[in-house]
């Protein structure tokens, strides 16, 4: 066969024959492969960067949130069995109340007792409902829950046993079962808070207050923070901390750099200074007395000049604004009989589940940790990115680390306020647990196999599946899925690029080979064997491929490098915000060369180029040279 050096000499002349066609082919094929190479470099860079940033927060962990159903959900309250139980409880309550009233010597009118059930007529048909205002109904629910308890941690452990769990953690929703808290701005209580301020559990925008296991909270704890033993430790989102520090909100058009600087400022200030917020908790009786003190003072002021006005026998006054004490008694002109009757009534009410004693407590929270803010709106690309790759402990809640709460000197009284049992079982939060796995596959399998399918009303439809299971804390599982998706999309893109490039190259090489029939005939007349012709076209194609490969690599590398140079810094800031890596020197790169993968692309270019040559060349050498010369 012809020597390689000679084949190169002849092949090189072919590259010069159809310059426009050759140039177009080289440009088109190079751009296609360049796009592929750039995509590979960028994907490799992003994947590596994500992996590095993923070690922050909860990102590198595979957590599944497990929530059990409330046993009262799912139509239980409408069943005949429950209605009968509630009605029976209603009858028993009246009998018990009549007996207790008689014993205490107070009046009790059973006709005023809210019925345990209500009958409603709809479309000519009567339907019976539970009356949630009735204490008898609450008693019936309590009894039902006692008989049908929610699945507990042991049952969760059993369900997860086959999926190699590496940890089980509890998360308790803290709640103010009876009362509310309001922030004491500048140390003073606002006795007339707006409705918003009053219903808010703690801070604006907060959806709940959780007490979480230290395994969950540890990644978010600020370095070197200590509490004085009486402050309640709290992990809040950056945006909440921003508000607590009194920093004005950034404008909506603030740059990534502005956000980053703000986050660093929040981090620095929260780490260096004890950021605290003091609140006043009052139960319903305490709040009622404060409200009464305000309305009585108002009434007395309004009737100052009314000689016929008779002041109330018991007048409440406001406590010192910085004390969070109960309302003071300014005057108590009640008779002994009145006081006795009131005491008997209080005892009666307490017996039947009503709160009668005022409870108030000054609670000071101290920020000991920060978690990335989560966005519910997804209105901007940044929000969307945040929801995809970010990790957040708080997820709209503020979190008290359970271990730090236990270390508090006032742990017992704080727990009695924040973790008090709710008397209404319907308002009791379902048990929350987290199961941790070492990899996404186990977590995904556990969710698929064991999570109940949620019905419209929020209950489990599948028997035996006791918990609703959701990937939580981060999107590690989704991220891994996303990476796999990207890999498969890249695979498909590779196939598409190769097919397109082969079509372009085949048509170009086909045309060149067809145009070279006369030349082939002349070569054959000059002694060329078929293998010599194949070698010449193979070398010609290789020259073409090498050019395409060089240009593809140069353009692909250049494009990826350009993207990295142009957006890398911004992406680093964005990633630091998303991944809770504010206090690190990590950088986010769009540019990372995977030699093996690029090698594969070059091999693909070579193979696809050679493949393009095969059919036209085989056709060419099978032709009769005389026929080609004659046609010429």
């Amino acid at each position, binding site marked *: 066969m*012809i020597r390689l050096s000679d084949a190169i000499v*002849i092949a090189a*002349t072919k590259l010069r024959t159809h310059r426009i066609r050759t140039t177009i082919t080289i440009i088109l094929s190079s751009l296609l492969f360049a796009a592929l190479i750039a995509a590979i470099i960028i994907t490799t860079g992003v994947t590596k960067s994500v992996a590095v940033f993923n070690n922050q927060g909860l990102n590198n962990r595979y957590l599944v949130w497990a929530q059990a159903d409330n046993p009262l959900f799912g139509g239980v309250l409408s069943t005949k069995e429950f209605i009968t139980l509630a009605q029976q409880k209603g009858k028993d309550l009246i009998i018990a109340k009549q007996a207790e009233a008689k014993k205490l010597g107070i009046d009790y009118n059973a006709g005023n007792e809210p019925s345990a059930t209500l009958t409603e007529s709809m479309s000519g048909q009567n339907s019976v409902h539970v009356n949630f205002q009735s204490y008898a109904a609450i008693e019936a629910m309590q009894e039902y829950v006692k008989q049908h308890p929610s699945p507990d941690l042991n049952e969760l452990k059993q369900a997860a046993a086959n999926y190699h769990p590496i940890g089980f953690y509890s998360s308790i929703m803290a709640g103010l079962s009876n009362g509310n808290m309001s922030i004491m701005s500048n140390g003073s209580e606002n006795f007339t808070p707006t409705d918003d301020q009053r219903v808010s559990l703690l801070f604006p925008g907060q959806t709940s207050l959780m007490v979480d296991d230290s395994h969950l909270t540890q990644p978010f704890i600020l370095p070197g923070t200590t509490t004085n033993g009486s402050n309640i430790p709290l992990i809040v989102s950056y945006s909440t901390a921003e508000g607590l520090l009194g920093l004005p909100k950034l404008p909506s058009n603030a740059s990534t750099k502005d956000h980053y600087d703000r986050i660093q400022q929040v981090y620095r200030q929260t780490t260096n200074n004890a950021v605290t917020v003091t609140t006043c908790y009052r139960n319903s009786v305490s709040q009622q007395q404060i409200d009464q003190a305000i309305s009585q003072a108002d009434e007395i002021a309004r009737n100052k000049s009314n000689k016929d006005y008779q002041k109330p026998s018991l007048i409440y006054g406001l406590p010192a604004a910085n004390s969070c004490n109960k309302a003071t008694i300014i005057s108590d002109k009640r008779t002994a009989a009145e006081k006795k009757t009131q005491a008997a009534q209080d005892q009666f009410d307490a017996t039947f589940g009503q709160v009668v004693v005022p409870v108030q407590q000054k609670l000071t929270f101290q920020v000991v940790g920060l978690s990335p803010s989560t966005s519910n709106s997804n209105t901007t690309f940044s929000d969307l990115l945040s929801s995809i790759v970010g990790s957040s402990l708080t997820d709209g809640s503020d979190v008290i680390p359970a271990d730090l709460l236990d270390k508090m000197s006032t742990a017992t009284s704080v727990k009695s306020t924040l973790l008090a049992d709710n008397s209404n079982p319907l308002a009791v939060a379902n048990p929350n647990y987290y199961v941790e796995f070492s990899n996404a596959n186990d977590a995904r399998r556990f969710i698929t196999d064991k999570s109940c399918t949620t019905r419209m009303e929020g209950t489990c439809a599948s028997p035996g599946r006791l918990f609703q299971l959701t990937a939580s804390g981060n999107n590690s599982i989704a991220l891994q899925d996303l990476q796999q998706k990207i890999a498969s999309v890249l695979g498909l893109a590779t196939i598409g690029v190769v097919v397109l490039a082969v079509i372009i190259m085949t048509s170009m090489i086909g045309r060149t080979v067809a145009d070279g029939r006369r*030349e082939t005939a002349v070569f054959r007349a000059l002694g060329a064997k078929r293998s010599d012709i194949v070698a010449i076209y193979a070398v010609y194609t290789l020259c073409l491929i090498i050019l395409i490969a060089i240009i593809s690599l140069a353009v692909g590398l250049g494009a990826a490098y350009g993207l990295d140079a142009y957006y890398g810094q911004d992406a680093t800031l964005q990633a630091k915000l998303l991944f809770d890596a504010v206090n690190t020197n990590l950088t986010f790169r769009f540019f990372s060369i995977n030699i093996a993968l690029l090698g594969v692309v070059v091999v693909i270019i070579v193979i696809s180029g050679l493949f393009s040559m095969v059919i036209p060349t085989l056709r060419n050498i099978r032709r*009769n040279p*005389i026929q080609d010369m004659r046609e010429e």
Partner: protein
Amino acid sequence: MEQTNTETSVANDKRPIVVIDKVVRSYKVKKQTIPAINGISLSINEGEFVVLNGSSGSGKSTLLQLIGGLDKPDSGNITIDGVDIKKLSDHKLSLFRGKTIGFVFQFFYLQPFLRLGRNIEVPGMFTRLKRKERKLRVKQLAEIVGLSDRLNHFPAELSGGQIQRAAIVRALLNQPKILLADEPTGNLDSTNSAAIIDLFEQIRQQFGTTIIVATHDPNIAARADRIITLKDGAII
């Protein structure tokens, strides 16, 4: 001896180098079979200068291609330098052609983007002639045809006569025993044609090459040892 379809060598003192025996070749054009060579028998001796004459379509180019092993007969035998080329595989026939036969075409067919020296080297590339030897032969042959100072030029920079001389030199690179030329002066003016005819003569004298030329050119015919005239695929 059949006078119409058979020709024997006039140079009886030399051995026959081309022996054609009852060769038939026809082509199918659409559904019609057109006979190109119709039972020709012919013998040409070593060193003979033979002209194939005849009108267009008489079969002279086809006969040339059959002798060169570029085409195979439907029937009959062709023996070149003692080798029955019909029996050779495509690979062996290519090797044989490369070493034994040199081709010269009417339209020269030089590679436009190869310098003249490289163009002349091409047949040597296919026979794997050593580069050094190729260069030496190119130099010697170019000197003979007066192209020594043109070896670094591209074909587009040369005249028609120079190009045809280069094409003849290219055909001689592998020192073939037979030189086949198809209308070698068809694209040349009379001066260049005369120079080419002189060159054929010189080649025969210097190398003892058998030269077979298919041509209408009476000037070439006048210099030939023998003229074989074809009509409708047969020797007349």
